[in-house]
């Protein structure tokens, strides 16, 4: 297999090198890609949409249809991880471990028995390590600021690098940080499985719904200028607000999918303990 792989790789590489002879040189300002279509976006983004960040206006307005399907791809990935891994919660895990807080003694209960929640016993994972005060407190203090920064990144996608995808990942990372520094059950209490699973399609539906609203108002799909009548602004500002609305949808979808995938993979579908 290695020899076949080597032959295929060398042949393909040689073919690609042969084809690269016709390419424009690196950073050539007169290449067809730089002179044919993209000058329109750079010169007209402020005039059409009043958004200074050309990448955001291109992403969410000119080629917004692609971005809607990109968000659907994210939702699909979360859904596939769920459908492949999730074991329905009827079957309780066989053994669970509890630790007596005062003395440090570990109690193992078999056959699905449990101790009711009390102050003396805490539930621990198979791979338990002693709690580290610095990590727990540090992360608990940082998480609200991380979330605030995530919201900032979403909101300022118009004028600085950022947008829905980037901000959504930061927001998702804040909950995953909670799951890593404490344990998965703490994160699941903060954001339940059903909430995550329902918010994910809601996020993408906000994007598709904005486009459908434009369709119902009589113009083509995802033509945000129709929102001018709903929001009582001129069409150019309506495009800017339309971009913002879809970025919010994208942020919600990405955040919930990151959390969903992490929950499913780290607990192998059982949702009883994480990494």
């Amino acid at each position, binding site marked *: 297999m290695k020899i076949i792989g080597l032959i295929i790789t060398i042949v393909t590489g040689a073919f690609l090198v042969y084809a690269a002879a016709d390419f424009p040189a690196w950073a050539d300002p007169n290449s067809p890609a*730089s002179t044919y279509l993209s000058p329109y976006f750079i010169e007209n983004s402020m005039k059409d949409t009043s958004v200074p960040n050309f990448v955001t206006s291109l*992403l969410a307005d000119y080629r917004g249809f692609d971005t809607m399907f990109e968000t659907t791809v994210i939702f699909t990935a979360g859904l596939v991880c769920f459908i492949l891994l999730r074991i329905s919660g009827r079957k309780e895990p066989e053994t669970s471990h509890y630790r007596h807080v005062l003395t440090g003694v570990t109690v193992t209960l078999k056959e699905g028995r449990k101790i009711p929640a009390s102050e003396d016993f805490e539930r621990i994972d198979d791979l338990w390590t002693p709690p580290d005060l610095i990590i727990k407190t540090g992360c608990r203090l940082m998480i609200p600021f991380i979330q605030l920064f995530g919201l900032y990144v979403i909101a300022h996608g118009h*004028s600085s690098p950022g947008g829905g995808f980037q901000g959504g990942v930061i927001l998702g990372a804040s909950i995953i940080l909670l799951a890593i520094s404490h344990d998965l059950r703490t994160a699941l209490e903060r954001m339940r499985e059903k909430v995550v699973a329902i918010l994910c399609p809601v996020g993408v539906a906000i994007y598709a719904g904005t486009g459908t609203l434009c369709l119902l108002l009589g113009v083509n799909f995802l033509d945000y200028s129709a929102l001018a009548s709903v929001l009582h602004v001129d069409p150019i500002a309506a495009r800017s607000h339309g971009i913002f609305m879809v970025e919010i949808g994208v942020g919600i979808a990405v955040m919930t999918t990151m959390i969903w995938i992490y929950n499913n993979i780290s607990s*192998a579908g059982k949702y009883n303990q994480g990494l």
Partner: protein
Amino acid sequence: MNMAELIPALIAKYNYWIYITLMMIGLYAMIAKNNLVKKIVGMNIFQTAIILYYVSIGVKKGATIPISAGGHGAAHEAVHAADYLNPLPHVLMLTAIVVGVATLGVALALCLRIYNRYNTLEEDEILAQIRKK
């Protein structure tokens, strides 16, 4: 083409040689490696090389990032296309990166299922277990 023309032409297009090398490393890993997770890593390298290629298309000499320097208040200033990078490859590659992450998530979920069933991630051991049935 004599050497005097060949060397400057090679150096002027160095970004293409880099991306081709990375792509072939990724492709070789996907075909020749035995471990399923190593194949997934190779897949990621392969996709990243293509992303690198697209982004390198968008570079212009002497240009800055594609955000209008004047910000919101500069709606009436003229914007020259030669001053800013080409934003279109960046947008396309946002999509490609997301697709790559989604495929990675699905591939890892499948690897978890395979590991739960066969207790190994080496392809030859799995095929041996299947043939024994």
